[in-house]
């Protein structure tokens, strides 16, 4: 049986962590995987911590509970590292990816004894430079695809391009910027 990868997203309401989890599910689907993408709904307020999840597998997935022992944790807002126990249940051989300009090891003391791998990606810098505005999702997706090696890199890039053409059908001028942001993020992840 193929291995099932479980991912937990931490973000703040309005930052698009839920959308990112759905985009990741979409990209993985496009590369032939079985997928789940789902948010954990709470009181929906801008800025409040939110959680979203992905399961990705080569086999059909039947579990419908939340994820308690993820293989990967993605933190879209680095201030959450202090506010939420982001490494709760994270597997020892798993990894955490944080949206930050800092170096990965700067987070080690804040992660409550987590011994696994830490990566950072400066999604803000990439997004602002390539899109002119701060949308962390696409760089985060690029980073997670690079780190997890869940999907063949070229297939992932093609799947994302297809998804952008669909998603941005009414504003095609943003597609190039998003593609550049995606590819840059795959190169600029720190901690590899």
């Amino acid at each position: 049986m193929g291995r099932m990868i479980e991912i937990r997203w931490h973000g703040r309401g309005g930052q698009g962590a839920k959308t990112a989890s759905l985009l990741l599910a979409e990209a993985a689907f496009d590369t032939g995987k079985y997928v789940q993408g789902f948010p954990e709904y709470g009181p929906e307020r801008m800025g409040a911590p939110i959680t979203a999840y992905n399961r990705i597998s080569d086999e059909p997935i039947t579990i419908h509970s939340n994820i308690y022992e993820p293989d990967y944790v993605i933190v879209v807002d680095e201030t959450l590292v202090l506010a939420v126990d982001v490494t709760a249940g994270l597997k020892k051989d798993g990894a955490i990816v944080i949206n930050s300009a800092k170096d990965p090891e700067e987070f080690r003391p804040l992660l409550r004894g987590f011994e696994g791998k830490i990566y950072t990606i400066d999604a803000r810098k990439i997004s602002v430079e390539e899109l002119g505005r701060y949308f962390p999702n696409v760089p985060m997706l690029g980073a997670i695809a690079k780190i997890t090696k869940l999907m063949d890199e070229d297939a992932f890039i093609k799947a994302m391009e297809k998804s952008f053409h669909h998603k941005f059908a009414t504003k095609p001028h943003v597609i190039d910027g998003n593609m550049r942001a995606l590819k840059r993020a795959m190169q600029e992840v720190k901690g590899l």
Partner: protein
Amino acid sequence: MAIKDKLSGNEAIAVAMRQIDPDVVAAFPITPSTEVPQYFSQFVANGQVHTEFVAVESEHSAMSACIGAEAAGARTMTATSSQGLALMWEMLYIAASLRLPIVMSVINRALSGPINIHNDHSDSMGARDSGWIQLYCENNQEAYDNLIQAIRIAEHKDVQLPVMVCYDGFITSHAVENIELLEDEKVKAFIGEYKPEHYLLDKDNPISMGPLDMPAYYFEHKRAQAEAMKNAKRVILEVAQEFEKLTGRKYGYFEEYKMEDAEVAIVIMNSTAGTAKFVVNELRKQGVKAGLIKMRVFRPFPFEELGKALSHLKAVAIMDKADSFSTAGGPLFTEVRSAMFDYARDTKAVSYIYGLGGRDVRTDEIMTVYQDLLEIVRTGEVKSTFNYLGVRE
């Protein structure tokens, strides 16, 4: 060729409704069902369906409008959740007793209070005696498949009853998963055109609907309603067989998962059945003869079939995502055990109420239920018949 896609449960239901292209949809938004009329109203605005979309001011009005439309002879659909279903209450009984084949998605959510937007089955379980057929769904695929089959079941001339297609709020409604869709023309061919026998706009055969029914005839009408529900048992299987020919996907009254040689099993509904299947697989790896029954059809209730399916077990746990406050187990437990009295009297049965108000149900919790069953088998003793799972006592 099936169309492979990835959709949330609500998206899947909206797509099915687009393919069905009903004459009338009347709906009022309520979380987590809101997306269904929302997505569908986009199809209406885009001219992708010919449906008359009626935006009403409450769920009571939504069901009333559905009743009026269906009585007039229109194929009619709607969707709701929780308090919305509760507000429809008196009209649910009218729809069923007027024998109007309305099809409604119920996106299961806890009833207030305390106020809560998350999943359990207290809304549709409360409507179990309203005369509606009830189909339950594990995932987005089953929601889509059941909605299409529901049209055929509801409109069958021997049935003519409304159908609720129930799936879990958020867990299924808002989760994106893989799904196989049918082509539009295949859905249209499968459901066919709606040709009601009696309807208000049939000017050549004028009828009256909903008049006063005194003691001289009321009972006969209710008896006929019960007979229609009995007919539904046959029709549900006939429609399922045809659907299997079309899709390869098999449906019955319930799904038996690794039941053939099972000694212990749980009976459960909707999304948690999938979580429990994972646990069954784990137990099987350890050599434990564990099985599972997932209910699909709760109304009509498959009394004999289910009773017999449990007869070879040593112990069974019946799990309810709703409490009936009888202090004697949830609604599913009560009915399953009643069937077991005739067909599975040697099987020990215990009740678990779980997951109320969206309390997440983990695999390790389901595992403890199987461990409890194995303990019952080992000792031959039931220490506790009525149990709660995953709650702070």
